[in-house]
């Protein structure tokens, strides 16, 4: 046994036990938030999508909401719908139901508007939370972990200490039968050849290269140098000069683990081990994608200090910048800056990080959870709003 978790009907393990209140379209956000504000033990997921978008985007929204609802950190789900959106709400409900957890759909237009839907939803949420409170944590193993890998507000310390330390932790996790999900395809640009060489076979490596090409073409289609967008102004102040440099530091998060498969945004991995998921680098979309992929813990390395968490998946913040650790006390969970100073070895830092992951999986709260710093969330779209 390595941690205590919530084992669900389908065998997946939650590290948290919330009732999710998911808006299926931007127009339902108010009601989802209203219900979540009324009932302790719930978490709302809101976003700006779900209507007047191209079919590929609507399909991605439907897939992402399904994935979020299926995330094992949710014991039950309420889908707050407007009633006329583009999201396939029935398909979302069916996908979640298949995991064995309770799902309720609340359509605002058919429930008599804000006040009536809020009242109805609040009573349903109260019952679901009380039912969920009966579920107890049980012994789980490293192989039950699905860990999302993220770096943000990076500076050059990111590539020197926290990312390589996370890489070592990922090697240990995947050797123990666990799963790690690597996203942020923009931040493979310039380092994709290294990651592709870590793929289990040539075809998988080719799919990594294809994802990167697709992402780079999206950026290039705008007709400008993407510097300023990637790397960001903050990255540049922190000493990162080009996307290639940022990427070489970013892919260190994978360590030397073998890439077993490649997935679309928000898709749950069907294999164990290290996998790559299509996604941009920006936090609201990336963290949502990780949660939709079924991650039960996310490790987020940062140089300058990124504060964002996610409503129902704990996000562990790790920095390698001493100044950030000393000044951003209510955002950083762990520091490995002594690796940069030379006073701690990389394996020792990686071991501390691994212990922290298991601790968070077992219920230790992260700074983002304590502070409620997880309101910026959205679903990744690639087409226009129409």
């Amino acid at each position, binding site marked *: 046994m390595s941690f205590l978790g919530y084992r669900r009907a389908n065998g997946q393990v939650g590290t948290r036990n919330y009732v999710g209140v998911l808006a299926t379209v931007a127009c339902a956000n108010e009601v989802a938030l209203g219900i979540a504000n009324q009932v302790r033990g719930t978490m709302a997921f809101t976003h700006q999508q779900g209507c007047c978008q191209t079919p590929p985007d609507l399909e991605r929204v439907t897939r992402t909401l399904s994935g979020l609802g299926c995330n094992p950190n949710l014991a039950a789900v309420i889908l707050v719908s407007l009633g006329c959106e583009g999201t396939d709400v029935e398909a979302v409900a069916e996908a979640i139901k298949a995991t064995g957890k309770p799902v309720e759909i609340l359509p605002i237009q058919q429930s008599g508007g804000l006040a009536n839907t809020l009242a109805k939803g609040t009573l349903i949420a109260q019952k679901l939370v009380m039912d969920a409170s009966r579920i107890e944590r049980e012994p789980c193993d490293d192989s039950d972990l699905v860990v999302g890998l993220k770096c943000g507000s990076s500076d050059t310390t990111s590539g020197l200490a926290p990312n390589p330390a996370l890489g070592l932790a990922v090697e240990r996790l995947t050797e123990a039968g666990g799963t790690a999900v690597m996203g942020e395809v923009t931040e493979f640009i310039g380092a994709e050849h290294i990651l592709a060489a870590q793929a289990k076979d040539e075809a998988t490596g080719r799919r990594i290269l294809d994802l990167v090409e697709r992402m780079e073409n999206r950026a290039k289609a705008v*007709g400008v140098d993407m*510097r300023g967008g990637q790397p960001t102004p903050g990255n540049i102040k922190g000493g990162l*000069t080009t996307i*290639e440099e940022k990427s070489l530091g970013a892919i260190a998060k994978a360590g030397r683990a073998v890439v077993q498969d490649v997935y679309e945004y928000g898709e749950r991995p069907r294999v164990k081990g290290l996998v790559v998921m299509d996604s941009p680098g920006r936090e609201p979309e990336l963290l949502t994608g990780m949660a939709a992929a079924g991650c039960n813990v996310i490790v987020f390395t940062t140089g300058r200090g990124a504060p964002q968490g996610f409503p129902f998946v704990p996000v562990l913040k790790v920095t390698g910048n001493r100044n950030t650790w000393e000044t951003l006390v209510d955002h950083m969970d762990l520091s490995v800056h002594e690796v940069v100073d030379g006073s701690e070895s990389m394996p020792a830092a990686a071991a501390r990080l691994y212990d922290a992951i298991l601790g968070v999986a077992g219920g230790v709260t992260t700074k983002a959870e304590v502070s409620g710093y997880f309101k910026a969330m959205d679903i990744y779209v690639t087409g226009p709003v129409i």
Partner: protein
Amino acid sequence: MIRNAIIIDAGDNIATVLRDVAAGGDVVAGLGDETVVLAAVEPIPFGHKVAVRAIAKDEEILKYGAVIGAATQDIAQGMHVHVQNVVSLRGRGDLEAGEK
């Protein structure tokens, strides 16, 4: 001498400084067990890069033993290597727009 910089790969032509280095100050860079010492010709802020040897215009900038961009001008040893003298070679929609 106490190291204040790191060269990640033996092939790299830049070092990353781990403390602010003043103009004229020593950059004492570790490369595994070796130590490379040079003078900074301008201030190098914490986390930024300094040229460990002269780099010619258009030459590749190497970090982690990999290409991170190209020099837009001749860069002398000890100079600050950053956006003022390095361009990215990737995601350059501006170059493709120019070709059309």
